[in-house]
């Protein structure tokens, strides 16, 4: 075994360069304020002021996202100029909550600043893309406004220094996700998927809120840094463990870990831009951000880390396996997202205070780039071929050359092939997991995480290879002689003209691949980031103090290559070049249904709850209300009796008078 040098991550990092001192304009507020408010106001303006003009709504949406992106970039610059690289800011002032201290502050630190830039950039790309994708959609305006609102909420979660603000952003994101997934509200499949997403995540959010409550109640303040300091000083305790376990449950819901995983594949019913934003870059990763902010607390809670690790590892491997068998490219990418998010969370469980949580955030940034790219490109191809089923998408990358590199680079980054960005983040993860193993001396959690990551890498490579093989299958026409040289794709100025379908004799494919220039630019930018994003990940601002185990790296790459070759072999004899065709139909169907998780949700949760609700409603209507109804019936009955017995002859009336007199006299004398 050759003696491999001992490389640490910091050796690979870029040297820090002194940046020129730019004159900072004295604007109101900090860049964090601008970023959050710009998108929030864009959302409100989009809902209220755009009237019936799609164009105006598009300007508002893109403008808000652009402003947020510029603000977050400027924020990066300002952080380099500040000593200590932390910048706090207040928002609406402290809330008067008596003993509880709620300062509602924002805070920017290094890894989170890059996350903020990533979120804003992906949002900008998605806004521009959605303009083209939803050109003919009558509900484009609320869509753009909801995307702006969502961006604002996610930025709030990333930049908040207050658990109350985090909760607000968290809940708003959940609601926006419901709106976006159910965008085509007349399709029952879409509304069902939206309801399912909302219900599953909100069920888990109970844990999230309770966990935050315990943390806040114990610390007496909602400021995150103070909460962390308080509980870290107090040390491990049952209360802290309970809070962190509840938080992990809440994060598991939003991030689609087992057993909450089934909402995410179904959420693909939403439009592709929404999927790209929410289910690739932002919402599913929000849990990672929150846990990273509370990382010192997580690292001392053994049971919470164990729970997180177990859930994440099971999900990681299971989702990667299920992704292989999906018959729809978007669902494949959805299961891939489930697996990758689980990867981010697993490394949080394995990390120690020495390594810090930065590996998870690095993978978050990397995943955002390549998954958004893949989703948007899939959407583009879906428009061209009329759907996202594998059968339709076959040969798509071959037929439409413009998509070829996009798909290719995205899949390579997903698989983690050097020099793409996915490779660097995967190496950071492996290094952190190994450092965790060394620190705990072979503890169960880091070992489990390491094993799962090692197992997931070849599985990821497998389904990426499968997808690529299907997409780049040679077309029937290409089997024959080439008849024409494909020309560059027609570009259209999207804000001023409708896409014009040019019918020319040279070939329909050239005309069909028309896309707006801004959408195309967005996907190109993402594509470039998947290649050069590694530079971002190697900036000296990240902190993982981990060793890069070159042996492990080599072993992983070898496994990935082997797995890819196996898939290529398996796909060789299949006409569609789809390796998953080798899976038996029953297994394949079960995998497409998420191993019947939906049925399990219905039987275990939905049916008992609905039965209980019906029982309570019956009790209220029949038992409790019957008393109320009975009062009315009884009164009327008594009234009728009184009416019938009221004397109508003179003598009984007089008898009543005299009897009354006697009764009163007796009463008066007795009580005298």
């Amino acid at each position, binding site marked *: 075994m050759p003696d491999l040098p001992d490389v640490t991550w910091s050796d690979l990092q870029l040297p820090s360069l002194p940046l020129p001192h730019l004159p900072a304009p004295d604007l109101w507020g900090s860049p964090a304020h601008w970023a959050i408010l710009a998108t929030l106001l864009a959302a409100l303006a989009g809902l209220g002021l755009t009237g019936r003009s799609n164009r105006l709504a598009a300007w508002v949406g893109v403008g808000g996202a652009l402003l947020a992106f510029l603000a977050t970039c400027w924020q990066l610059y300002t952080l380099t100029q500040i000593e200590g690289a932390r910048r706090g800011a207040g928002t609406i002032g402290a809330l008067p909550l008596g003993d509880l201290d709620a300062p509602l502050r924002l805070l920017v630190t290094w890894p989170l600043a890059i996350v903020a830039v990533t979120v804003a950039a992906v949002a900008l790309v998605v806004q521009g893309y959605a303009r083209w994708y939803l050109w003919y959609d009558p509900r484009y305006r609320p869509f753009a406004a909801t995307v702006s609102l969502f961006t604002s909420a996610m930025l709030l979660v990333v930049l908040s220094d207050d658990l109350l603000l985090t909760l607000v952003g968290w809940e708003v994101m959940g609601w926006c996700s419901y709106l976006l997934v159910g965008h085509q509200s007349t399709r029952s499949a879409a509304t069902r998927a939206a309801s399912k997403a909302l219900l599953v995540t909100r069920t888990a959010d109970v844990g999230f809120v309770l966990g935050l409550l315990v943390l806040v109640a114990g610390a007496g303040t909602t400021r995150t840094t103070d909460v962390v300091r308080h509980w870290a000083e107090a040390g491990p305790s049952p209360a802290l463990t309970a809070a962190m376990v509840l938080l992990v449950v809440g994060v598991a819901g939003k991030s689609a870990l087992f057993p909450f995983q089934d909402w995410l594949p179904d959420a693909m019913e939403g439009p592709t831009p929404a999927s790209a934003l929410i289910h690739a870059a932002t919402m599913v990763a929000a849990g990672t951000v929150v846990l990273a902010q509370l990382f010192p607390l997580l690292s001392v809670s053994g049971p919470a880390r164990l729970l997180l690790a177990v859930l994440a590892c099971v999900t990681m491997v299971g989702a990667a396996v299920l992704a292989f068998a999906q018959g729809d490219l978007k669902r494949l990418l959805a299961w891939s997202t489930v697996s990758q998010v689980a990867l981010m969370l697993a490394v949080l469980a394995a990390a120690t205070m020495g390594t810090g949580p930065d590996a998870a955030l690095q993978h978050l940034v990397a995943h955002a780039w390549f998954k958004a790219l893949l989703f948007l490109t899939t959407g583009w191809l879906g428009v061209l071929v009329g759907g996202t089923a594998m059968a339709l998408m076959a040969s798509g990358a071959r037929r439409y050359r413009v998509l070829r590199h996009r798909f290719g680079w995205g899949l390579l980054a997903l698989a983690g092939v050097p020099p793409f960005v996915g490779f660097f983040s995967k190496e950071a993860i492996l290094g952190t997991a190994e450092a965790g193993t060394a620190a705990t001396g072979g503890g169960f959690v880091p070992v489990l995480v390491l094993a799962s990551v090692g197992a997931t890498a070849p599985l990821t490579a497998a389904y990426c290879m499968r997808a690529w093989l299907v997409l780049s299958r040679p077309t029937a026409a290409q089997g024959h002689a080439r008849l024409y040289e494909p020309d560059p794709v027609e570009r259209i100025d999207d804000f001023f003209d409708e896409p014009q379908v040019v019918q020319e004799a040279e070939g329909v494919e050239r005309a069909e691949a028309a896309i707006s220039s801004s959408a195309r630019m967005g996907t190109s930018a993402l594509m470039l980031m998947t290649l050069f994003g590694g530079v971002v990940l190697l900036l000296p601002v990240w902190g993982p103090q981990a060793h890069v185990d070159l042996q492990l790296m080599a072993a992983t790459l070898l496994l990935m290559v082997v797995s890819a070759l196996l898939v290529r072999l398996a796909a060789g004899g299949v006409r569609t070049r789809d390796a998953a065709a080798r899976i038996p139909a029953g297994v394949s169907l079960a995998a497409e249904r998420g191993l019947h998780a939906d049925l399990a949700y219905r039987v275990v949760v939905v049916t008992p709850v609905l039965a209980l609700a019906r029982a309570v409603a019956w009790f209220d209507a029949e038992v409790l209300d019957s008393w109320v109804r009975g009062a009315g019936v009884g009164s009327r009955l008594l009234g009728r009796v009184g009416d019938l017995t009221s004397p109508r002859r003179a003598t009984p009336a007089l008898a009543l008078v005299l009897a009354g007199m006697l009764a009163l006299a007796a009463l*008066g004398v007795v009580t005298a």
Partner: protein
Amino acid sequence: MTLEVDLSSVLPVLAPLAAAVLLLLMDAALPGRREPHLVVGALGLAAGLVAALPGLRLAVGEARSSFCLAGGWCAYRADHLVSALQVCALGAALVVLVLTWRDWSAPGPGAGAETTGRAPVVTALLLAATAGVVAVPAAGDLGSLLVALELATLPTVALVALVRTTWAADRRARAVDGAVALLTTSLVSFGLLALGAALWVAATGSTRFDGATRAEHPELLVLAAVLLVAGLAFKVSAVPFHAWTPVTYAAAPLPVTAYLATVSKVAALGGLVVVVRALGTVEGTTLVAVAVLAGASMTVGNLVALVQQDTVRLLAWSTVAQAGWVLLPLASLSAQAASAAGSYLVVYVTATLLAFVVLAAVVALGVQARPASLEAQRGLLRSHPWLALPLMLALLTLAGLPPAVAGVVAKVVALRPVLGDETWWLALVAAVNIALGLAVYLRWVAVLVAPAPRRQAGGVTAGQGEAGTGDQAAAAAAPAGDRRRVPVRLWALTGLLTALLVAGSILPVGAL
């Protein structure tokens, strides 16, 4: 023995009496005329009203007295509360007179016995009864009390029985039946009153109410007080002395029913206030009896009113229930009990009078077959909103619901002495009856607000058969399809009473 007579104080009693005598003389001098008698009657009532107004500015403890002896005792003593009751009674009597003006001044069809009309007789009866009502609260001794009470009661019996000969025989017979019911009850009650007065004198040795009552035998005094209360209770329609109320209200002409429901109650409460004040200086042991009366009246009245289909009967049973509310404050020992009862009575009189005025207007419109039934008033809010809105205001006042704040304040004022006394069982009964009362009145309001049914063609239904009255025949004689209009005087009365209720809601007076 010298007797000081202050005529200006006693004018509220003298003016109606003088007017009654005057118009009887006028009838002897100018036979065959009807309008002048009504004018004289109205003037007499108005004069009495004006004379009673200065009493409203009296401070606590002051009184306007007349017929006083040297020792300081006065046979007529009107303090602030008594003056308020007097103003209320005279005003209500004036409203009833205006309400019935056209009916009493109308001759029968053709010549004959109706040409002279009954205007002098019935007006004189009304004036005499009102004079009695005004004198009762100011009575200073048992003699004045008994005389004034009978003066207030007996003419009303005659008013019930004296209906126009142009009415159908069956209708007239039913009116006499109603008069018999009221007569028998009032006779027996007077017997009880006399017995009670006799026992009172036996117990205290004096007929005077002068605040220094000492009783050698307290049980006897209690018995006497109970008998007095029992004798007065029929007039306020308290249970179990109420059996005449639905019979007589349904049988009498509508204005006379209005009189019975409002002005007579003032006399009853006046008498009770006199008795309770006299007792209050000795001991307060009849109060359980009064509490039982109040609770029973409220409950029975509300329960039976829930099932009534005819609005006049509904108002009759509502009167029984409201009698309970009027009696409620008197069941406590507090000093403000009498004032609270008086305040509630004033609000009750205004609201009930408004309800009767609107009911008379609806009957005058006569659109439906039986205009006084509950079903006939369905959808009144849409067909005649200016009639339905005052009626709804009156009903909400009686129920004690906002926006009729006057009614809410009245109920609060009536409840306060009971709560201050901590008689929890009575407060509980009152609370239950607030709910029952809401049901009673809101049932009527719901009918008013409901969508109107399809209207019958024209407003005249010929061939009514069994109970056609004279006016129905007159309406049949009018050209078919002629839309009946509400007389102007009814609009004026409605407006006046609504304004009073609204003013009472904006500036609630509270306890007098």
